[in-house]
């Protein structure tokens, strides 16, 4: 009797499970359509076509395609196209320059735009220099305004752990940096430093936000040349104040211990440089002696016959 009852309960449970799974799979399938961005004016009817393009005055083919899938992950997915592209986008000529792009972002993000224009990047941007970074260079993984993502997303180029790599796309380019007299290998020296190692070996967790990267010392939208006296790293006084932000009580001595993105040399913290040489000699000679002894011992132990004394 109890056996029959058991079978009845088990059978019912199995039935519920089957129904539950059917409902679950159904819901999943129904909701598994592609996430959409807001498109009130049906722009994507044409612009969602990958081959959609135009030919400009110089005979250049320009793609007019907007990738809806990529767009659906962007920070602005709930903002309609016309917010940035005006109410009558086909009538308004769009000069596609970095500056015009920054202006567009600045129509909403006014504070950041103002800081950016006064930064070393912004000042060069206004001069028409195409090398410099502007909004999309640091906020989109493919430098595309349609795929700007929020800084707290793990794959955002401006997420804390990714910032050094983002800066390095330009500042790791020796030829490009040579044009501006920046000879220090800033990326490599950062990665060798305490901060860089902490960042590289750290996780992607939000707790990692307390670790220093490029922007913590140099600033973000208001980033300035180290030759600019207003830069937080220009001169020992500014540098000390910058160190103090994370190292309370750090004085000028502490800041003076920074190698300045350069290797130690007779001119740059000579004690560290000569310590390096001393240890290189010590390490090489001690290891050489050790290796010779071990090799000689291996010769003895193997010719004498293993374990035969």
């Amino acid at each position, binding site marked *: 009797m109890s056996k029959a009852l058991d079978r009845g309960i088990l059978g019912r449970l199995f039935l519920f499970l089957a129904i539950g799974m059917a409902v679950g799979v159904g819901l999943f399938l129904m909701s598994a359509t592609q996430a959409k961005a807001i498109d009130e004016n049906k722009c994507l009817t044409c612009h969602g076509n990958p081959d959609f393009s135009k030919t400009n005055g110089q005979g250049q083919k320009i793609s007019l395609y907007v990738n809806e899938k990529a767009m659906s992950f962007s920070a602005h997915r709930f903002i309609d196209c016309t917010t940035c592209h005006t109410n009558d986008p086909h009538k308004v000529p769009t000069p596609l320059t970095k500056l015009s792009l920054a202006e567009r972002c600045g129509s909403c993000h006014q504070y950041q735009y103002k800081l950016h224009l006064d930064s070393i990047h912004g000042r060069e941007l206004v001069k028409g220099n195409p090398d410099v970074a502007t909004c999309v260079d640091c906020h989109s993984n493919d430098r595309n305004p349609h795929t700007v993502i929020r800084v707290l997303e793990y794959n955002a180029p401006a997420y804390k752990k990714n910032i050094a790599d983002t800066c390095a796309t330009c500042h790791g380019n020796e030829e490009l940096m040579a044009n501006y007299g920046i000879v220090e290998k800033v990326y490599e020296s950062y990665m060798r430093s305490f901060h860089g190692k902490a960042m590289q070996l750290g996780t992607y967790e939000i707790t990692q936000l307390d670790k220093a990267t490029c922007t913590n010392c140099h600033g973000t939208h208001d980033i300035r040349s180290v030759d600019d006296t207003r830069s937080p790293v220009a001169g020992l006084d500014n540098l000390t104040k910058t160190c103090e932000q994370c190292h309370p*009580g750090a004085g000028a001595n502490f800041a003076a211990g920074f190698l300045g993105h350069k290797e130690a040399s007779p001119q740059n913290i000579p004690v560290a440089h000569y310590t390096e040489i001393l240890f290189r000699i010590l390490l090489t000679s001690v290891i050489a002696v050790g290796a010779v002894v071990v090799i000689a*011992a291996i010769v003895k132990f193997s010719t004498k016959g293993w374990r035969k004394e």
Partner: protein
Amino acid sequence: MATVAGTMPLAQAREEQIRRFDTHQIIQHAGLMVTFILLVLSGMPLKFSEAGVSQWWAAVWGGIDNLRLLHRVAAWGIVVVCLYHLVYIWYTTAVLKRPFPYKMIPSLQDFIKFFQEMAYFLGLRREEPEWDRFNWREKFDYWAIFWGMPVIGISGFIMMFPVQATNFLPGWVLPTALVAHSDEAMLALTWIFVVHIFFNHFSPRVFPFNKSIFTGKVPRERYRREHALEYAAMTGEGKESDETDTGNIR
């Protein structure tokens, strides 16, 4: 004489052991070994941070913060072990009035015997040099730590407390401490893993590993061969010690 300890029945072999290290020395070596291994495991990824394996290993520990914590805990541990050793030396000599362990002090004899041993290894000499209480490798290991601990300890504490250190020291101590700390670590690490491990694991007399520092005892026959002068002085048989006092056997 003809039989080696390893070929004898276990019970008999046990009887043939001679005491070489006391309990304090066993604890000191074990403490040094454990903290050293922890320091290597938690320190290497910091030095070679760009290597993929370092990032994997750091991730295993849940990120650099945990690795750093482990490194610091083990660092305090190794400091305690070293202080224990210094107190032990002071207590045994000053309070218990045991003779000072001067046999650990390197001499010209060690230098000569080093070359004799090399010649023996390479088949240019028939006989092994005869060692007293410590051979040159044991002395080298000991003094390497004696010099290395202040170097690595002071540089480590400078990096552990950089703000406090630069309150009274110039700024260049920070990058210098990093260089000294990591290079001294490499020195210790490679010596331990190349020479120390090789001779205490792969030497035919002790393979697969030399248990003496854990049991405190050495088989009589091995003692006679490896520390011939001390053995002779201890048992009164055969050769005279080349060093005057032989009272340091415990």
